[in-house]
Protein backbone atom coordinates (compact mmCIF):
# COMPACT_ATOMS: atom_id res chain seq x y z
CA UNK A 1 0.00 0.00 0.00
CA UNK A 2 1.40 3.38 -0.98
CA UNK A 3 1.31 6.72 0.80
CA UNK A 4 1.06 5.49 4.35
CA UNK A 5 0.40 8.59 6.49
CA UNK A 6 3.28 9.61 8.77
CA UNK A 7 1.00 9.63 11.80
CA UNK A 8 0.83 5.84 11.62
CA UNK A 9 4.60 5.57 12.09
CA UNK A 10 4.22 7.52 15.35
CA UNK A 11 1.98 4.84 16.89
CA UNK A 12 3.44 2.36 19.36
CA UNK A 13 4.67 -0.98 18.00
CA UNK A 14 3.29 -4.29 19.10
CA UNK A 15 4.89 -7.62 18.23
CA UNK A 16 3.11 -10.94 17.76
CA UNK A 17 4.76 -14.33 17.60
CA UNK A 18 3.98 -16.94 14.95
CA UNK A 19 0.52 -18.38 15.60
CA UNK A 20 -0.64 -15.53 17.86
CA UNK A 21 -4.14 -14.22 17.24
CA UNK A 22 -3.96 -10.52 16.47
CA UNK A 23 -7.73 -10.19 16.18
CA UNK A 24 -10.32 -12.74 17.20
CA UNK A 25 -13.46 -13.37 15.15
CA UNK A 26 -16.51 -12.32 17.18
CA UNK A 27 -14.40 -10.21 19.53
CA UNK A 28 -15.50 -6.65 20.41
CA UNK A 29 -14.25 -3.62 18.48
CA UNK A 30 -11.27 -1.90 19.98
CA UNK A 31 -7.92 -1.33 18.38
CA UNK A 32 -7.01 -0.29 14.91
CA UNK A 33 -3.87 -2.06 13.68
CA UNK A 34 -1.52 -1.33 10.80
CA UNK A 35 0.87 -4.05 9.66
CA UNK A 36 4.48 -2.92 9.99
CA UNK A 37 6.36 -6.14 9.17
CA UNK A 38 5.78 -9.87 8.88
CA UNK A 39 2.76 -11.71 7.51
CA UNK A 40 -0.69 -12.58 8.78
CA UNK A 41 -3.47 -14.87 7.75
CA UNK A 42 -7.12 -13.85 7.80
CA UNK A 43 -9.59 -16.64 8.44
CA UNK A 44 -13.25 -17.04 9.13
CA UNK A 45 -14.80 -20.07 10.81
CA UNK A 46 -11.46 -21.84 10.37
CA UNK A 47 -11.38 -21.20 6.62
CA UNK A 48 -8.35 -19.31 5.34
CA UNK A 49 -9.45 -16.22 3.43
CA UNK A 50 -6.28 -14.32 2.73
CA UNK A 51 -2.62 -13.91 3.46
CA UNK A 52 -1.49 -10.33 4.01
CA UNK A 53 2.05 -9.02 4.15
CA UNK A 54 1.75 -5.52 2.69
CA UNK A 55 3.14 -2.88 4.98
CA UNK A 56 0.39 -0.48 6.02
CA UNK A 57 -2.42 -3.04 5.66
CA UNK A 58 -5.16 -2.04 8.10
CA UNK A 59 -7.06 -4.38 10.45
CA UNK A 60 -10.05 -3.81 12.72
CA UNK A 61 -11.38 -0.85 10.72
CA UNK A 62 -14.80 -2.34 9.84
CA UNK A 63 -15.40 -3.24 13.42
CA UNK A 64 -14.38 0.25 14.64
CA UNK A 65 -16.37 2.15 12.00
CA UNK A 66 -19.55 0.11 12.26
CA UNK A 67 -19.18 -0.66 15.96
CA UNK A 68 -19.63 -4.38 15.46
CA UNK A 69 -17.73 -7.51 16.45
CA UNK A 70 -14.73 -8.56 14.36
CA UNK A 71 -15.88 -10.57 11.34
CA UNK A 72 -12.67 -12.58 10.94
CA UNK A 73 -9.65 -13.83 12.82
CA UNK A 74 -6.23 -12.42 12.03
CA UNK A 75 -3.27 -14.56 13.09
CA UNK A 76 0.45 -14.13 12.62
CA UNK A 77 2.01 -16.67 10.22
CA UNK A 78 5.46 -15.37 11.10
CA UNK A 79 6.59 -12.96 13.75
CA UNK A 80 4.64 -9.81 12.90
CA UNK A 81 4.70 -6.25 14.15
CA UNK A 82 1.87 -3.72 14.07
CA UNK A 83 1.39 -0.03 14.72
CA UNK A 84 -1.54 0.05 17.11
CA UNK A 85 -4.08 2.82 17.77
CA UNK A 86 -5.72 2.08 21.12
CA UNK A 87 -8.34 4.81 20.63
CA UNK A 88 -9.10 4.62 16.92
CA UNK A 89 -11.80 7.29 16.82
CA UNK A 90 -9.61 9.88 18.56
CA UNK A 91 -6.68 8.88 16.38
CA UNK A 92 -8.68 9.34 13.18
CA UNK A 93 -10.27 12.57 14.35
CA UNK A 94 -6.90 14.14 15.13
CA UNK A 95 -5.27 12.74 11.97
CA UNK A 96 -7.70 13.27 9.09
CA UNK A 97 -5.12 11.93 6.63
CA UNK A 98 -5.43 8.57 8.40
CA UNK A 99 -9.23 8.67 8.07
CA UNK A 100 -8.68 9.49 4.40
CA UNK A 101 -6.24 6.60 4.05
CA UNK A 102 -8.77 4.18 5.51
CA UNK A 103 -11.58 5.62 3.38
CA UNK A 104 -9.44 5.09 0.30
CA UNK A 105 -8.71 1.51 1.33
CA UNK A 106 -12.41 0.82 1.76
CA UNK A 107 -13.34 2.53 -1.50
CA UNK A 108 -10.75 0.41 -3.32
CA UNK A 109 -12.16 -2.72 -1.77
CA UNK A 110 -15.68 -1.73 -2.81
CA UNK A 111 -14.54 -0.95 -6.33
CA UNK A 112 -12.84 -4.35 -6.59
CA UNK A 113 -15.96 -6.09 -5.33
CA UNK A 114 -18.12 -4.19 -7.78
CA UNK A 115 -15.92 -5.10 -10.74
CA UNK A 116 -15.83 -8.72 -9.62
CA UNK A 117 -19.61 -9.00 -9.56
CA UNK A 118 -20.16 -7.10 -12.80
CA UNK A 119 -17.76 -9.57 -14.41
CA UNK A 120 -19.52 -12.58 -12.88
CA UNK A 121 -22.76 -11.31 -14.36
CA UNK A 122 -21.08 -10.80 -17.76
CA UNK A 123 -19.53 -14.28 -17.76
CA UNK A 124 -22.85 -15.88 -16.82
CA UNK A 125 -25.03 -13.62 -18.98
CA UNK A 126 -26.86 -16.65 -20.36
CA UNK A 127 -28.18 -17.42 -16.90
CA UNK A 128 -31.75 -16.39 -16.33
CA UNK A 129 -31.65 -16.55 -12.54
CA UNK A 130 -30.52 -14.07 -9.93
CA UNK A 131 -27.06 -13.88 -11.47
CA UNK A 132 -28.61 -11.95 -14.36
CA UNK A 133 -29.79 -9.32 -11.85
CA UNK A 134 -26.44 -8.86 -10.15
CA UNK A 135 -25.31 -5.75 -12.02
CA UNK A 136 -28.68 -4.04 -11.58
CA UNK A 137 -28.75 -4.71 -7.86
CA UNK A 138 -25.11 -3.73 -7.57
CA UNK A 139 -25.69 -0.47 -9.46
CA UNK A 140 -28.37 0.44 -6.95
CA UNK A 141 -26.32 -0.58 -3.93
CA UNK A 142 -23.25 1.31 -5.10
CA UNK A 143 -25.05 4.54 -5.86
CA UNK A 144 -27.32 5.23 -2.96
CA UNK A 145 -27.21 6.32 0.65
CA UNK A 146 -27.31 3.24 2.82
CA UNK A 147 -30.26 3.20 5.24
CA UNK A 148 -29.92 1.50 8.54
CA UNK A 149 -33.27 -0.22 8.93
CA UNK A 150 -33.92 -1.59 12.36
CA UNK A 151 -34.47 -5.33 12.62
CA UNK A 152 -37.58 -5.41 14.75
CA UNK A 153 -37.85 -8.56 16.79
CA UNK A 154 -40.95 -10.50 15.72
CA UNK A 155 -43.29 -11.86 18.36
CA UNK A 156 -44.47 -14.82 16.28
CA UNK A 157 -43.04 -16.88 13.42
Amino acid sequence: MSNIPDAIAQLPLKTFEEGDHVIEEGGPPGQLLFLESGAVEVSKAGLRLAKVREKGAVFGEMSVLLNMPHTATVSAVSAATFRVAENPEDFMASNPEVAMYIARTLAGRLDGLNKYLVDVKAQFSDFDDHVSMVDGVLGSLMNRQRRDIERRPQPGP
Partner: protein
Amino acid sequence: MKILLVSDIHYSLKQFDWLVQVAPNFDLLVIAGDLLDVAGHADLDTQIVVVSQYLERLRGATRVLACSGNHDGDMKNDAGEYVADWLQDVREENLSVDGDTVDVGNLRATVCPWWDGPVTRENLSAMLDEARGEGSGRWLWIHHAPPDGSPVSWTGKQFAGDAHLLELLERLKPFCVFSGHIHHSPFHDGGSWVSRIDDTWTFNPGCEMGAPPAHIVIDFDAMEATWRSSMGEEKIDLAAPGDATPRPT
Protein backbone atom coordinates in the same frame (compact mmCIF):
# COMPACT_ATOMS: atom_id res chain seq x y z
CA MET B 1 -2.19 -42.57 -15.96
CA LYS B 2 -4.70 -40.18 -17.50
CA ILE B 3 -3.60 -36.57 -17.89
CA LEU B 4 -5.82 -33.61 -18.67
CA LEU B 5 -4.04 -30.65 -20.27
CA VAL B 6 -5.55 -27.18 -20.57
CA SER B 7 -4.01 -23.75 -21.01
CA ASP B 8 -4.98 -20.10 -21.34
CA ILE B 9 -8.08 -20.28 -19.19
CA HIS B 10 -7.78 -16.48 -18.82
CA TYR B 11 -10.12 -16.18 -15.86
CA SER B 12 -13.00 -17.91 -17.61
CA LEU B 13 -15.16 -18.89 -14.62
CA LYS B 14 -17.12 -21.39 -16.68
CA GLN B 15 -13.92 -23.11 -17.77
CA PHE B 16 -12.73 -23.30 -14.18
CA ASP B 17 -16.13 -24.67 -13.17
CA TRP B 18 -15.79 -27.32 -15.86
CA LEU B 19 -12.32 -28.26 -14.58
CA VAL B 20 -13.67 -28.68 -11.05
CA GLN B 21 -16.37 -30.96 -12.45
CA VAL B 22 -14.10 -33.24 -14.48
CA ALA B 23 -10.89 -33.18 -12.42
CA PRO B 24 -11.79 -36.31 -10.39
CA ASN B 25 -11.75 -38.33 -13.64
CA PHE B 26 -8.03 -37.68 -14.15
CA ASP B 27 -4.83 -38.67 -12.37
CA LEU B 28 -3.16 -35.42 -13.25
CA LEU B 29 -4.40 -31.99 -14.28
CA VAL B 30 -1.95 -29.66 -16.02
CA ILE B 31 -2.74 -25.97 -16.46
CA ALA B 32 -0.08 -24.60 -18.78
CA GLY B 33 -0.22 -20.91 -17.89
CA ASP B 34 -2.31 -17.78 -18.40
CA LEU B 35 -4.77 -18.47 -15.62
CA LEU B 36 -5.43 -14.73 -15.34
CA ASP B 37 -6.58 -12.19 -17.90
CA VAL B 38 -4.76 -8.87 -17.79
CA ALA B 39 -7.47 -7.37 -19.98
CA GLY B 40 -10.28 -8.76 -17.82
CA HIS B 41 -13.03 -6.75 -16.14
CA ALA B 42 -12.20 -7.88 -12.61
CA ASP B 43 -9.01 -6.49 -11.01
CA LEU B 44 -6.00 -8.81 -11.19
CA ASP B 45 -5.96 -8.76 -7.41
CA THR B 46 -9.52 -10.11 -7.40
CA GLN B 47 -8.76 -12.62 -10.15
CA ILE B 48 -5.91 -14.00 -8.05
CA VAL B 49 -8.26 -14.50 -5.10
CA VAL B 50 -10.79 -16.33 -7.26
CA VAL B 51 -8.27 -18.46 -9.17
CA SER B 52 -6.43 -19.39 -5.95
CA GLN B 53 -9.70 -20.73 -4.59
CA TYR B 54 -10.31 -22.72 -7.77
CA LEU B 55 -6.80 -24.22 -7.50
CA GLU B 56 -7.53 -25.13 -3.91
CA ARG B 57 -10.66 -26.98 -5.03
CA LEU B 58 -8.90 -28.65 -7.93
CA ARG B 59 -6.08 -30.00 -5.79
CA GLY B 60 -8.75 -31.58 -3.59
CA ALA B 61 -9.93 -33.53 -6.64
CA THR B 62 -6.67 -34.53 -8.28
CA ARG B 63 -2.98 -33.78 -8.54
CA VAL B 64 -2.46 -30.38 -10.17
CA LEU B 65 0.51 -28.78 -11.94
CA ALA B 66 0.18 -25.11 -12.89
CA CYS B 67 2.79 -22.85 -14.46
CA SER B 68 2.65 -19.11 -15.02
CA GLY B 69 2.05 -17.44 -18.35
CA ASN B 70 2.58 -13.89 -19.57
CA HIS B 71 -0.74 -12.83 -18.02
CA ASP B 72 0.07 -14.16 -14.57
CA GLY B 73 2.82 -11.86 -13.25
CA ASP B 74 1.80 -9.87 -10.18
CA MET B 75 5.19 -8.68 -8.94
CA LYS B 76 8.55 -7.65 -10.31
CA ASN B 77 11.80 -9.28 -9.25
CA ASP B 78 14.92 -7.21 -8.50
CA ALA B 79 15.70 -7.08 -12.21
CA GLY B 80 12.28 -5.58 -12.93
CA GLU B 81 10.93 -8.74 -14.57
CA TYR B 82 7.37 -9.80 -13.87
CA VAL B 83 6.96 -13.00 -11.87
CA ALA B 84 3.86 -14.82 -10.60
CA ASP B 85 4.49 -14.43 -6.91
CA TRP B 86 0.91 -15.36 -6.05
CA LEU B 87 1.40 -18.86 -7.48
CA GLN B 88 4.19 -19.44 -4.94
CA ASP B 89 1.61 -18.74 -2.27
CA VAL B 90 -0.83 -21.45 -3.38
CA ARG B 91 1.77 -24.25 -3.51
CA GLU B 92 0.46 -27.15 -1.42
CA GLU B 93 0.45 -30.87 -1.33
CA ASN B 94 -1.03 -32.01 -4.66
CA LEU B 95 -0.51 -28.58 -6.21
CA SER B 96 2.85 -27.86 -7.82
CA VAL B 97 3.76 -24.50 -9.33
CA ASP B 98 6.63 -22.57 -10.95
CA GLY B 99 9.99 -23.96 -9.86
CA ASP B 100 8.75 -27.38 -8.72
CA THR B 101 9.96 -30.72 -10.00
CA VAL B 102 7.85 -33.66 -8.87
CA ASP B 103 7.65 -37.34 -9.66
CA VAL B 104 4.18 -38.46 -10.64
CA GLY B 105 3.92 -42.15 -11.48
CA ASN B 106 6.61 -42.81 -14.06
CA LEU B 107 6.81 -39.14 -14.99
CA ARG B 108 9.17 -36.51 -13.70
CA ALA B 109 7.42 -33.17 -14.14
CA THR B 110 9.10 -29.77 -14.03
CA VAL B 111 6.91 -26.69 -13.79
CA CYS B 112 8.58 -23.76 -15.58
CA PRO B 113 7.88 -20.10 -14.88
CA TRP B 114 7.08 -17.63 -17.64
CA TRP B 115 10.32 -15.79 -18.31
CA ASP B 116 9.90 -12.07 -18.70
CA GLY B 117 13.62 -11.27 -18.97
CA PRO B 118 17.17 -12.64 -18.80
CA VAL B 119 17.30 -13.25 -15.03
CA THR B 120 14.22 -15.48 -14.93
CA ARG B 121 15.34 -17.14 -18.16
CA GLU B 122 18.77 -18.02 -16.75
CA ASN B 123 17.15 -19.27 -13.55
CA LEU B 124 14.96 -21.49 -15.68
CA SER B 125 17.96 -22.97 -17.51
CA ALA B 126 19.73 -23.64 -14.20
CA MET B 127 16.57 -25.13 -12.72
CA LEU B 128 16.14 -27.53 -15.64
CA ASP B 129 19.80 -28.57 -15.51
CA GLU B 130 19.36 -29.38 -11.86
CA ALA B 131 16.01 -31.13 -12.32
CA ARG B 132 17.37 -33.38 -15.01
CA GLY B 133 18.09 -36.02 -12.40
CA GLU B 134 18.80 -39.63 -13.09
CA GLY B 135 16.44 -39.73 -16.02
CA SER B 136 14.75 -43.07 -15.50
CA GLY B 137 11.24 -41.59 -15.63
CA ARG B 138 9.88 -39.73 -18.61
CA TRP B 139 10.56 -36.06 -18.22
CA LEU B 140 7.68 -33.66 -18.71
CA TRP B 141 8.00 -29.89 -18.88
CA ILE B 142 5.15 -27.50 -18.32
CA HIS B 143 6.11 -24.27 -20.09
CA HIS B 144 3.57 -21.67 -21.18
CA ALA B 145 5.19 -20.62 -24.46
CA PRO B 146 5.55 -23.44 -26.99
CA PRO B 147 8.89 -24.11 -28.68
CA ASP B 148 9.55 -21.95 -31.72
CA GLY B 149 9.42 -23.37 -35.18
CA SER B 150 6.92 -26.07 -34.29
CA PRO B 151 3.31 -26.34 -35.55
CA VAL B 152 2.19 -25.87 -31.92
CA SER B 153 3.56 -22.30 -32.15
CA TRP B 154 2.03 -21.44 -35.55
CA THR B 155 -0.11 -18.27 -35.56
CA GLY B 156 -1.43 -18.78 -39.05
CA LYS B 157 1.22 -16.43 -40.43
CA GLN B 158 4.40 -17.28 -38.58
CA PHE B 159 5.97 -19.27 -35.79
CA ALA B 160 5.74 -17.25 -32.58
CA GLY B 161 7.15 -19.67 -30.06
CA ASP B 162 10.09 -19.51 -27.70
CA ALA B 163 13.51 -19.96 -29.31
CA HIS B 164 15.20 -20.29 -25.91
CA LEU B 165 12.90 -23.19 -25.03
CA LEU B 166 13.80 -24.82 -28.33
CA GLU B 167 17.50 -24.64 -27.39
CA LEU B 168 16.83 -26.09 -23.94
CA LEU B 169 14.74 -28.81 -25.43
CA GLU B 170 17.38 -29.78 -27.98
CA ARG B 171 20.02 -29.85 -25.25
CA LEU B 172 18.09 -31.62 -22.47
CA LYS B 173 15.74 -33.74 -24.58
CA PRO B 174 12.67 -34.02 -22.35
CA PHE B 175 10.08 -36.64 -23.24
CA CYS B 176 7.40 -34.01 -23.74
CA VAL B 177 6.51 -30.34 -23.27
CA PHE B 178 3.03 -29.06 -22.37
CA SER B 179 2.40 -25.50 -23.54
CA GLY B 180 -0.26 -23.02 -24.60
CA HIS B 181 0.14 -19.30 -25.32
CA ILE B 182 -0.48 -19.32 -29.06
CA HIS B 183 -4.24 -19.54 -28.79
CA HIS B 184 -5.08 -20.57 -32.33
CA SER B 185 -2.24 -22.88 -33.36
CA PRO B 186 -4.44 -25.98 -33.40
CA PHE B 187 -7.08 -24.21 -35.48
CA HIS B 188 -4.89 -22.96 -38.32
CA ASP B 189 -3.71 -24.76 -41.43
CA GLY B 190 -0.08 -25.53 -40.79
CA GLY B 191 -0.61 -25.48 -37.05
CA SER B 192 -1.37 -28.29 -34.65
CA TRP B 193 -2.16 -29.28 -31.05
CA VAL B 194 0.57 -31.91 -31.12
CA SER B 195 3.91 -32.20 -32.78
CA ARG B 196 7.34 -33.68 -32.29
CA ILE B 197 10.80 -32.13 -32.20
CA ASP B 198 13.31 -34.98 -32.50
CA ASP B 199 12.03 -37.31 -29.78
CA THR B 200 10.22 -34.66 -27.73
CA TRP B 201 6.44 -34.53 -27.94
CA THR B 202 5.00 -31.02 -27.81
CA PHE B 203 1.38 -30.13 -27.06
CA ASN B 204 -0.72 -26.97 -27.14
CA PRO B 205 -4.47 -27.40 -26.60
CA GLY B 206 -5.27 -23.88 -27.87
CA CYS B 207 -7.76 -21.47 -26.39
CA GLU B 208 -11.47 -20.99 -27.02
CA MET B 209 -14.19 -19.05 -25.23
CA GLY B 210 -16.75 -20.79 -23.06
CA ALA B 211 -16.86 -24.23 -21.51
CA PRO B 212 -15.52 -26.77 -21.97
CA PRO B 213 -12.13 -25.29 -22.83
CA ALA B 214 -10.16 -26.84 -25.69
CA HIS B 215 -8.27 -29.65 -23.98
CA ILE B 216 -6.04 -32.66 -24.51
CA VAL B 217 -6.34 -36.00 -22.75
CA ILE B 218 -3.04 -37.84 -22.72
CA ASP B 219 -2.39 -41.41 -21.75
CA PHE B 220 1.31 -42.27 -21.91
CA ASP B 221 0.67 -45.88 -20.92
CA ALA B 222 -1.55 -46.44 -23.93
CA MET B 223 0.60 -43.90 -25.85
CA GLU B 224 -2.35 -41.99 -27.19
CA ALA B 225 -3.61 -38.44 -26.98
CA THR B 226 -7.00 -36.95 -27.78
CA TRP B 227 -7.75 -33.28 -28.46
CA ARG B 228 -11.25 -31.93 -28.00
CA SER B 229 -12.48 -28.51 -29.05
CA SER B 230 -15.36 -26.90 -30.90
CA MET B 231 -13.77 -28.45 -34.00
CA GLY B 232 -14.56 -31.93 -32.72
CA GLU B 233 -12.17 -34.61 -31.63
CA GLU B 234 -8.79 -35.70 -32.93
CA LYS B 235 -6.57 -38.55 -31.82
CA ILE B 236 -2.94 -39.39 -32.24
CA ASP B 237 -1.09 -42.65 -31.76
CA LEU B 238 2.08 -41.60 -29.97
CA ALA B 239 3.64 -45.00 -30.56
CA ALA B 240 3.29 -44.80 -34.33
CA PRO B 241 6.69 -44.67 -35.98
CA GLY B 242 7.86 -41.72 -38.02
CA ASP B 243 5.94 -38.54 -38.57
CA ALA B 244 2.73 -39.26 -36.68
CA THR B 245 -0.20 -37.03 -37.55
CA PRO B 246 -3.42 -36.50 -35.62
CA ARG B 247 -6.62 -37.85 -37.16
CA PRO B 248 -10.23 -36.87 -36.60
CA THR B 249 -12.24 -39.53 -34.78
